[in-house]
């Protein structure tokens, strides 16, 4: 069975600084993979290389068996960046419409799809307001809604729940679970450790290397601690 994502021996340098130092990762279909690590560990670089936005110095990044960058494959990936990346002079609906067309959504299902994703992130009532008037959390939700457009087979989410209140966070996780149940796969980076517990597997990225990569409860057993957070702290201490 071909994996959704397969990263092997990824190395990436920016000038003198080595950001990734031989990263190996794989994402299986119907799985939520959590990528955790301190800031500067290279989480965003892993994601950008996976999407083909950065080219690795060595190693390979494959999505559905195809080496990235691969433009055609991008239509099946829903990407949400760390920055909100929204057109603030446009309304929420106009942002969704724009990205829907960029993702080549058929015109006849466009309105229904926009309504669906707006419902998921609870923005239905605010869709016709300009984004410049949105709160930080609303922008984050709209950004997530854009990633959810077209029910992509693979969701790549960079810190999706920053600035989102707990109730909505729960709903977003429900939605992710529903997407996975429908056959999607998710690669997610997070700072929130209780979110890491919800992942099927967690990869701990430290100093450009994957220090630990397993299911949360297995990691906890390996490190003889109770939570992923403690795993994180212990692994960081060992470095």
């Amino acid at each position, binding site marked *: 069975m071909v994996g959704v994502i397969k990263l092997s021996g990824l190395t990436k340098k920016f000038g003198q600084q080595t950001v990734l130092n031989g990263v190996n990762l794989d994402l299986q279909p119907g799985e939520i993979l959590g990528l955790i690590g301190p800031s500067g560990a290279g989480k965003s670089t892993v994601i950008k290389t996976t999407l083909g936005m950065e080219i690795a110095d060595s190693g390979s990044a494959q999505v559905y068996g195809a080496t990235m960058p691969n433009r055609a494959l991008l239509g099946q990936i829903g990407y949400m960046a760390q920055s909100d990346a929204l057109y603030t002079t446009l309304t929420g609906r106009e942002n969704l419409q724009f990205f829907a*067309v960029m993702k080549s959504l058929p015109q006849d299902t466009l309105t229904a799809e926009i309504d669906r994703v707006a419902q998921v992130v609870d923005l239905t009532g605010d869709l016709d307001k300009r984004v410049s008037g949105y709160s930080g959390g609303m922008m984050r939700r709209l950004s997530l809604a854009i990633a959810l457009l077209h029910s992509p087979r693979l969701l790549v989410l960079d810190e999706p729940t920053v600035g989102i209140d707990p109730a909505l966070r729960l709903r977003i996780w429900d939605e992710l679970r529903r997407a996975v149940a429908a056959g999607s796969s998710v690669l997610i980076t997070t700072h929130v450790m209780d979110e890491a517990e919800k992942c099927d597997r967690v990869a701990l990225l430290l100093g450009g290397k994957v220090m630990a990569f397993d299911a949360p409860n297995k990691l906890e057993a390996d490190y003889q601690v109770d939570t992923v957070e403690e795993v994180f702290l212990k692994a960081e201490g060992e470095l």
Partner: protein
Amino acid sequence: MRRVIKLMRRIAKELLRDPRTLALVFVAPVLVMWLMSVVFSVNSTTHVDVATVGVQSSLRTQLNDVKHVSAHKYTTNRSAKAALKSGKVDAIVKEHDSRFDVTYANTDSTKTSMTKLAFQSSMTSTTLKELSAKVTKLAMANATLQAKMQAQVAAQGATSTTPTTTAGKTKQTTKAVKVHNHYVYGDSNTSYFDKIMPIMMAFFVFLFVFLVSGMALLKERSTGTLDRVLATPVRRSEIVLGYLGTYGILALLQTVVIVISTVWLLNVEVVGNLANVILVNVLVAFVAVTAGIFLSTLAASEFQMMQFLPIVLVPQIFLSGLIPLDALPKWLDYFSYIFPIRYAADAQNAIIFNGDGLSKIWVDLVVLLAFASYSPR
């Protein structure tokens, strides 16, 4: 294609919701063009005040009669010098023992050269007048002499003629010669502004489209929207096309506004086809978008984008033909060919002054297209 149109519509929507940018694109050029037309028309009628010390009245009146020159009589050299210092007069003409000393304030070189010219011409005409007066006097003396001789003859004979007839004849020969002026382009009111107007038009299109598109793209980079768009199946070329499309239309509208305001409000004559003028400017807009995209990749912030202006724009202003290029050193003339505005200016001049059609300006258009098709990563 659907994606390109959507991109164009999105870029247009963002522009339309930004009234300041719209004002910059449509109101600012008209305002600046109007200001320039006023400033450069006024500049062509410099007025010079000349102080005269001990100059004979005939020369002074002659000097005073020269257009845009007034001569003022000062009795002492000292008072004249004080007037020069305070800026009341621009030059002093002093006559002393049939020798002329002219002192110029020389703070404005045009005034100096104008005074020189005026003084020389009035000197010449004064000399001429004196000469003709002398000739008339001589003729008169001759006539009186003849009359005297005739009188002497008449004293011996009987008939007599008056010398007035001869004097009347001399007057008839000094009939004024009339000069009729004909203009190939424009009329007697054509000023420096008319000469630079075609270049300024292309320059404005370049400046504003470059600024607005470069900033827009920079914003897309810094906010991450460009990354996000690139994380969809969109081709880079589609994004560039979207920008070219919207800003091409913007340039088209801007050119129409500039042309209407210069032709109808400022009475500038366009000999050639207005459609060609618009075509050139749309191509200039394409070049400006390409330049904007390219430089936005090199800039990390809006301020860094502004730092490119002296490098990208200022040389283009000076080497585009605002200052006649044939007066420049040869190497500068060759150097100017690396700038797109040079080609746009050549094409604009050919259309507006000579009425040239596409068959004569196609080389310029091809070069502009080549500039526009450069596509950075």
